[in-house]
């Protein structure tokens, strides 16, 4: 326990919503190509003021939705496919196993490790084999789950905070920088460049931030 540990009532819980929504935003941008409807929804009803300050990525995303006039969604859709889905060679395959395993294949040791972590928190895949456990969308979903669960606790050092620390320091922070580089090296799309930069900055921030509250 650190001597200058923060007071969770003051420092952790107020930021909870913000952090959770950051993960939701990132997850949303990654989980499927941005449809015209979703773009309009966010443009008209979303409030993205707070991410303006989150580094270059935050600014790009903010401008993309709030400042720029309209977007050619089919161009960004093709970029999305080329980066994350295929067909063809994925330019930024969004699985931890790819970046940390030896052979750049799926279902390497990281997938087994995070599956165990999910299991220890009482979670499993809705449908096995539809997606590997270490896909970024699922790792982000898990972070959201941990944050939500932690809001019900009242002491610091809860296992949900420890879980976030584990996921961030032992997993996400170890591959997101390389993944970000692949996205930046392979697309001109402002949407996905912004996404990658925001993701990288936020994961880096959150990894350091959560350390203050875990044991």
């Amino acid at each position: 326990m650190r001597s200058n540990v923060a007071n969770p009532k003051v420092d952790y819980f107020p930021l909870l919503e913000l952090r959770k929504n950051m993960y939701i935003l990132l997850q949303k941008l990654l989980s499927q190509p941005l449809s015209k409807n979703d773009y309009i929804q966010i443009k008209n009803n979303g409030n993205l003021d707070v991410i303006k300050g989150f580094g270059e990525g935050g600014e790009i995303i903010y401008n993309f939705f709030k400042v720029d006039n309209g977007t050619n969604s089919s161009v960004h859709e093709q970029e999305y496919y080329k980066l994350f889905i295929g067909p063809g060679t994925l330019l930024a395959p969004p699985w931890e196993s790819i970046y940390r395993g030896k052979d750049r294949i799926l279902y390497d040791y990281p997938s087994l490790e995070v599956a165990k972590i999910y299991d220890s928190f009482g979670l499993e895949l809705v449908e096995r084999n539809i997606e590997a456990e270490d896909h970024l969308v699922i790792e982000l979903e898990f972070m959201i789950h941990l944050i939500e669960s932690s809001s019900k606790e009242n002491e610091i050092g809860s296992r949900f905070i420890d879980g976030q620390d584990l996921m961030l320091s032992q997993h996400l922070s170890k591959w997101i920088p390389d993944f970000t580089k692949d996205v930046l090296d392979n697309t001109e799309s402002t949407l996905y460049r912004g996404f990658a930069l925001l993701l990288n900055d936020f994961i880096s921030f959150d990894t350091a931030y959560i350390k203050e509250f875990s044991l």
Partner: protein
Amino acid sequence: MSIFKQIKENSISRRTFLKWSGASTAPLVLGGISTKKYLKPKEVRAEKMEDQVKVIPTCGTTNCGGRCLVKAHVKDGKIIRISTDDAEEDSLICPQIRACIRGRSYRKFIYNPNRLKYPMKRVGKRGEGKFERITWEEAINTIHKETERITDKYGPASRYSVYASGNWGGITSGRTMFNKLMGLTGGYLGYHNTYSSAQTSIATPYTYGTGASGSSLDSLVNSKLIILWGHNPAETIFGTSNFYLKKAKEAGAKIYVVDPRYSDTGVGLADEWFPIRPTTDNALMDAMTYVIITENLHDKKFLNKYCIGHDEKHMPKDIPEGESLESYILGKKDGVEKSPEWAEKICGLPANKIRQLAREYAMAKPAALIQGWGPQRHMNGEQIVRGSTVLASITGNVGKNGGWASGSGGFGRTSVASVPNVENPLGITIPCFLYTDAITHGTDMTAEDGIIGLKEGEGLPTNIKLLFNLAGNALVNQHGDINKTKEILEDENLVEFIVVSDVFMTPSAKFADILLPSNTFFERYDIGLPWGYGDYAILSQKVSESLYESKSDYEWLTLLAKKMGVEKEFTEGKTEKDWARWVIEETRKEDPEFPSWKQMQKQGIHKWKFEKPTIGFEKEIKDPENNPFPTPSGKIEIFSKDLWDMNKHEEIPAIPKHVPVDEGPESELTKKYPLQLIGWHYKRRCHSTHDNNPWMEEAGKQEMWMNEIDATERNINDGDITKVFNDRGIVHIPVKVTNRIVPGVVAIPQGAWYTPNKEGIDTRGSINVLTTQKPSPLAKGNPQHTNLVEVEKAQ
């Protein structure tokens, strides 16, 4: 500096940060859009999460000669390791069936992140490679609609399933099930031949009446001399060939290889390499025959008893004088003695080496001249096949234990039950290599083009309008003249709809209108059998669930069958697993020694044991009276009257002859394109499968072999990127300068994925950019080893 950066660098206190975030006008809000959930609370179960590793025996079902035993080590539904056959017994009658480097790299195949995951539909021009994701429902509906529309407009003969061997499994592959589905709904245009063995399958029966000219390989331990003629089992893994060749060597057999390359088989097994130029095999064979006849080494008793056409006294009726083998070899009619000196000029092998080869083959009793399928994949490969059967006959090596009748060497003494299929009501088949012709001018094609099932003078009822390309890369990558094929397929007025299913986006998959994600053999049930030489069958077991939304061809064809109203007749109420079980149980009915379903699930492989070899044509030789050869004359037809009657004596002679071809070393075209180009089967791929496997790239990179002399002449050094070209296209490929290939010949291993740059130049080394679509004269087969090119250093 942004708030965020300051926090990161600890240059701002947490309190200040909290003040900032609390002071934001409103919380981060996205406006109410939801995301799919992948995680759920665990279901209550008795056991803990799987920490156990299960080992499940299975096999691959790509078009690999081995189809070996592969054991998947599975933990928590994921394959964490692959091992192979480690049975204690590894004997002559029961060898281990061990996987090669391809089998051992299967995890990188199934878990490649670039696997096709979702059904997709084309957006943009055909062949551009732009797709968007759709649901399976939309995919099946579209396929159904287009199939109905095209069938109504052009008739069922407009429907064609492209030759494909990515799933060469035993029971319910896309190729065979397309036939069943279309057979139930009016028919389709079928094909005959394969890209592997067209020339030899068609030509061998002109000598023996059948292509089943092989013996079981354990007979090779009785051979005194084995000549591997364009045969490279060390890389291709032709069933259990490698095991038995090693045993033969141990038993004292000499092994020679005849090949333009000093192949891995040569290096690993041979006592001597006899290099020749591609397409000149018949000149060498003619000269060997010359030596054997003039030195009285031929088996006259055998010839007179079993053969016709070897000399003037043993010819069919009504054939003019001078057409016998002997007359041809001795130059009685054309004035050219087919001597070693004559042959040396053509094939490049020195005359004294020809004499050595001929004498040793004739005098080693018995000797096995085993021809691979490379030599027949040429512009007049049929001659090369027939030539080998003639050599076997004049030396009396047919029907002998330790001998070999040559030709296609077809052999199989074991089998399993076949899944029922449906006959094609249309009954028309084209040679598979002519599929693009049937698109551009099918209605002009007749029996003359090798089409079977048409009446005299009749053309195809329609051009091909609908293509299903299921688990194959012969739509584009493996077919001849890729640039020409591309042009044809890009035209949406020619073929109106293309369905493709595959594991990856191959160069062929790029041309899909609907692109379907296929599962892999690990994710479904099948039965695996080797190419001929191997007395085993393997249950290819399902080891894990299909990834993403991938389905087997059988699964989605079932959905299509439902739409077409024939689901019951199509599936007969069975899933793939049911069919696998059915095959095993039916086989057991005929062969009680065959394991039960439960046993097969446990052991994975069944190995039949035979106490002694099975010799091809043994009956025909031991008791010819009661077992004539299935030829018109009942004899071994060195001279074939059927061929004579075709009246194409130059291109399709009645006895095998050296026939110079359009892109051979004697062609005028060598003035423009002086180098011969062949493409061998590389150990690191199975045809085009595994080209995207990084482990395999390490094991054998894609490079062209070139002789030192040719390289020096062109200022090319080892490792340089070269430009290889002819009138059909341009390829850039790094070169390996080596003396393991004959001067005047370059070799690009086949199967590399066509990867054009902006200028249309292939940058991966896909040989079919340079091959032709012109078929061989008799079989209408693919002549993919007969090409002329020039090579320069690439700029």
